[in-house]
């Protein structure tokens, strides 16, 4: 099957979104763990923030990232006519 312009565009958009979401993923993971002591001086919902991020916050961000990706890709599939029935 030849590679059409439409496919190219779809693929580029896919890659761009993947890169953005991987960045969010990285930010929700490494800095949060690295600077946990500093973050613990802030308070969130009555928890020290650093502790909260490790216990719940990062996990919630991950689920949101995945949810957003799926929604975005499903729409992209439809717009580019590559959705499976």
């Amino acid at each position, binding site marked *: 099957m030849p590679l059409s312009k439409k496919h190219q565009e779809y693929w580029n958009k896919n890659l761009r979104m993947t890169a953005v979401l991987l960045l969010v993923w990285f930010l929700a993971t490494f800095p949060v763990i690295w600077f946990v002591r500093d973050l613990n001086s802030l308070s969130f919902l009555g928890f020290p923030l650093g502790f909260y991020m490790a216990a719940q916050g990062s996990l919630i961000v991950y*689920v949101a990232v995945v949810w957003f990706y799926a929604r975005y890709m499903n729409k992209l599939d439809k717009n580019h006519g590559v959705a499976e029935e």
Partner: protein
Amino acid sequence: MTKTLNKFALSAAALLASGSALAATGAVADEFKWMTFAVFGVIIAITMGITYWAAKHTHTTSEFYAAGRSVSGVQNGWAIAGDYLSAASFLGIAGLISLYGYDGFMYSVGWLVAYITVLLVIAEPCRNIGKFTMGDILAFRNEPKKVKTVAALSTITVSTFYLTAQMVGGGVLIKTLIGIDYEISVIGVGILMLAYVVFGGMKATTWVQIIKASLLVTASILLVMFVWMPYGFSLPDYLSAVVGDSKVQAQVAKLLGDKATTMTAAELGQRFLEPGLFLKSPIDQISLGMALVLGTAGMPHILMRFFTVPTAQAARLSVIWAMAIIGGFYVLTLFLGTGAAMLVGPAKIASIDPGGNMAGPLLAQYLGGGADSMLGNFFLAFVAAVAFATIVAVVAGLVLAAASAMAHDIYVGVIRGDHATPQEQVVAARVASVIVGIMAITVGIMAKGQNVAHLVALAFAVAASSNLPAVFLTLYWKKCNTGGIIAGMLVGAITAIALVMVSPNMTYPQAVIKAAKKVIEGEPASEAKPAVEAKPGEGFACELFAVCKKAEPAKHAELAKPAKPGTREKLVTLQAKLDAATDEAEKKTIQGDLEKVKKAHDKAEGDLKKFEGQTTSMVGLEKPFFLLKNPGLISIPLGFLAVIIGSLLYRDQRAEDMWDELYVRQNTGIHAEAASAH
């Protein structure tokens, strides 16, 4: 087939029943064991019923390996969660949190982090290109016979390491929980798992995963409700109760040792929410993190799950569900872990199992009313049964992955050159499952008493260094070809295995003997030492290999310490004390102490005997040459590098020509089912 299936069910039940007769001691008291077996029985009966139903609907290869691509996104999400939440994450993480606080979370976050890479980078294109195995993905634009052989070898290696760890861990766990003999536990798990896989294929395996995941979540939610209720479901109130608990503070003080003497009780409690009580070396953590994050994306039994859904949309939906379930479950472990620390106490948890695995079960028992109550033991029985189901389900997924590599890649793909009738293929798959299953049971029994933690590290490291570079580059790099795939998979796997063989994971007799002697003889009195400043190392390589000087952290000044008596001396003094004691209660406590010391003494003596005369490890080293526990930091980049160099040297026009086709297919998934026509 029905008859054989019934026989399997009967013999499995008989095994479990005979286990009760042989029962030694476990967390469940003898008089309540029947209850555990009743709960086990119900779970086994339900899963066997499903297997019977699935067996009737499993005739073609697609049905056997991929449940006929009929699994919905939501169902697959639950099944992925089932595959993922092994006994280690269910019992282990709650245990680590109960013992070490914050550092315990690193295990939950660390593992969930991995799932993002799986979804965003690997899962969807793989679903669109592959058919049943990782070999199919790689064969798409490379020479099928060669890459399928290497892919199958790597899959079998990874599965075997992980499988052995699961079997040994499962055997030990069941023994600790209910006191069934180790060998019988391993055989019981093996036979049950084989029944699911051989008769029901992917369909039964999927449903076993779904049932197990829902049981796990239900059990956890119930426990958390009980833990949290007294605090009116308020987070801050609950947390301050944990921080203010004297058992938690005592644990922190114990972990910190000398440093704790200047801290107030409140500070000690707060320290429970900060890192550094369990994990010490940051480079090692990064290496482990890399292997976990990238290894999950290369785990064959996880990749395989994405072949069971009908569309790309369903694949995405399944990851959302899996993430939400796993994430939600880990949020619950916060309460399970800290609740166990507060209500049961770290000291008691560690006394039954030093790794903390019994935190969840003991918490269940406590919440039901304690060790003597009916309800408490029912709770404990329920959690034990869930743990059992967990082990069986995870093992089933792994066996299916290894068997598919053997039957689909090697037998059908390489030996028969893709010419086999559907019937022959299903028979081959079943035979391969039996072979892998028997192997798992045998290896599990042989590895009794071995430390298998490094096997898990190895499985993930090999998956990350061998499978991931090959799969990733064939999907995203036009110039990637057969030469690169073969070079990368071999280099990645071999480096990972070789580095673990020379790492601190192996047993080094000299260190064991020294530690054992210290236990028996005690330590001599030491003089006061001045503080030592941190010394920089001779470069980054020195942190990884034992060829030059490593950086040394600063040391606090130490006061003079009196000599510490060894167990030999302690046994004598305690015995004398016991003889002199007159009070009954006093006698009892001394008796208890005496038994503890005796246990430590016997273990040290055993170690001394075992390693007598040995000076080097299995591969002939006196000390570890590679200083990290996990090889990921080095072997993963090497795996990628080898794929790139191999591809550039090999030149294959066809692989480049096929790129456009792969490109369209990996995006759209059109014709995913008719995948092998190339």
